[in-house]
């Protein structure tokens, strides 16, 4: 049977606020356990939450960015469950009245086509703490530093049809929240995590199949792998006439499999109800407009601008706008050399090759954007040749120097572009090569082009390679042709 894959993603993005969603504790990553857990975060008796205005502003900003309805009245609910990293015995979240309603994003697929994926909703909630399972005499340790970190949970419609599309969607969300500056996007620190809902149905059937939820997938690669192995697992079961159990599963990247979590949620009933400690959040059109006015250029807009105004190809524009880090780097290079096309060539060529080869992230590139831009500017003004540029790039990459001009000097890459100096060498070479001049003059005009190579070689040799080859060519031709 032919199966259709149905995928919906729930992405949790930590909002880049300084303090927590309901307390004044720092949200900084990596502190000693429980040193950023206030009375409120610890859920001590008698404490109360007060909502962080930046968490609200960031969520609204996100809603504006995905062209969503913004909830003018949104409400926090309590989701009740017991777990040691959930200090109050409930999570404060939004069920019935989320801050962000239906919106959408466009994803670009490998063949260059785009697809629109609708976003059901995005709501504000608090993150949980962490259970550390290393051995404390057979016990677990609870660190509540992360408890109360603001999150938006972004829920897609079940419109994603393949693991590749899922990755494209996750990447696009990543780029949107990082462009907006509402999330640092650091997947390795858990700043963005993804739950993947996967089901299969016979092609053509409208009704959804039973889904499983793969929890907490924290890299683009794992999203693709996890979904693919889950699709395979489900397909095997269904092909054998079996049925899928609705459950929560975990992806094990080492074994390349998903496995059922010991189903703590099966018997659970979250008993959502409006949080009586928090009042309805009411915002007006003016507030939303003020936020809308602060929206930065978003990935799709940047791509369009790079094509329309800066003359880049669709492919280049797409790659260069795909992540905030890439875009920021590229724009800085282009600004420094004032040439988008050259900047694009170098960023997508030499730089990307070096980054890939050395498995370095662009934000950690040893060649800074300003340096690369300065080097490209030197090619543009004929100080160095393109080949010389590669030498400068290599030197910068190996951190042999910081200053582009100093490197050009120390590497002796400066071209002689002084007409007088080049003419002097040309004259000398012509004077020293009467035989070759004779051959040139007597040759058929269409053969002379080839013959000029000898003179260029001699001039470059005499200038120790420093003469600007273009100029050498031009002056030689003028002088030799004058003799004909």
């Amino acid at each position: 049977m032919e199966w259709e894959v149905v995928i919906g993603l729930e992405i949790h993005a930590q909002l880049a606020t300084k303090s927590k969603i309901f307390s004044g504790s720092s949200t900084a990553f990596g502190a000693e356990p429980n040193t950023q857990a206030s009375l409120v975060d610890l859920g001590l008796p008698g404490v109360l939450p007060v909502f962080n205005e930046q968490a609200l502003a960031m969520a609204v900003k996100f809603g504006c960015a995905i062209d969503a309805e913004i909830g003018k009245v949104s409400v926090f609910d309590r989701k009740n469950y017991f777990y040691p990293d959930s200090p109050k015995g409930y999570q404060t979240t939004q069920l019935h009245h989320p801050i962000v309603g239906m919106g959408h994003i466009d994803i670009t697929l490998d063949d260059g086509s785009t697809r629109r994926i609708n976003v059901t909703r995005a709501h504000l909630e608090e993150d949980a703490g962490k259970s550390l399972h290393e051995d404390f005499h057979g016990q677990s340790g609870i660190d509540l530093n992360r408890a109360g970190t603001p999150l938006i949970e972004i829920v897609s419609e079940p419109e994603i049809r393949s693991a590749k599309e899922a990755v494209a969607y996750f990447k696009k969300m990543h780029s949107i929240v990082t462009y907006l500056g509402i999330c640092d996007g650091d997947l390795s620190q858990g700043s963005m995590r993804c739950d993947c809902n996967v089901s299969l149905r016979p092609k053509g059937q409208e009704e959804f199949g039973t889904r499983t939820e793969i929890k907490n997938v924290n890299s683009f690669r794992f999203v693709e792998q996890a979904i693919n192995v889950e699709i395979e697992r489900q397909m095997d079961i269904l092909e054998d006439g079996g049925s899928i159990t609705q459950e929560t599963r975990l992806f094990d990247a080492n074994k390349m499999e998903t496995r059922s979590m010991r189903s703590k949620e099966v018997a659970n009933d979250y008993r959502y109800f409006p949080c009586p400690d928090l009042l309805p959040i009411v915002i007006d059109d003016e507030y939303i407009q003020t936020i809308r006015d602060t929206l930065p250029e978003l990935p799709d807009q940047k791509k369009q601008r790079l094509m329309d105004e800066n003359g880049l190809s669709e492919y280049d524009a797409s790659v260069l706008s795909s992540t905030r880090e890439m875009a920021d780097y590229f724009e800085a290079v282009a600004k420094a050399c004032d040439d988008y096309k050259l900047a694009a060539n170098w960023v997508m060529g030499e730089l990307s090759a070096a980054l890939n080869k050395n498995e370095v992230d662009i934000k950690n590139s040893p060649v800074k954007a300003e340096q690369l831009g300065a080097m490209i500017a030197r090619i543009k003004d004929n100080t160095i040749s393109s080949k010389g540029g590669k030498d400068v790039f290599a030197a910068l990459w190996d951190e042999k120097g910081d200053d582009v001009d100093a490197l050009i000097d120390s590497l002796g890459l400066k071209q002689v572009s002084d007409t007088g100096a080049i003419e002097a060498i040309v004259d000398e070479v012509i004077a020293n090569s009467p035989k070759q001049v004779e051959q040139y003059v007597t040759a058929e005009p269409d053969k002379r082009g080839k013959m000029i190579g000898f003179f260029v070689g001699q001039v470059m040799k005499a200038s120790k390679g420093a003469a600007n080859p273009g100029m050498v060519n031009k002056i030689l031709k003028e002088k030799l042709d004058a003799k004909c």
Partner: protein
Amino acid sequence: MALDRSDVTNIANLARLAIAEDNIDQYQQELSSILALVEQMNAVNTDNIQPLAHPTDAVQRLRSDQVTEVNDREKFMANAPAQENGLFLVPKVVE
């Protein structure tokens, strides 16, 4: 609605309350009579009535995004039944 014994067990389980087997009957009876009291609500028609979650009409105030808390771990954790290296200890959590 009258509860049966399994309802009582389920509710106690959801609420994470250990209750003695011997007390289930008593809870069953007491909770059922409380529910009977509560169900007097059904005598009134409340169609088209907006639920009231908060007695006042106030809306949520916002806190400025400032870090105002300083580390006071030792004091805040002084009541912990079990702790080590700044972590609360619980029986091994299985995932």
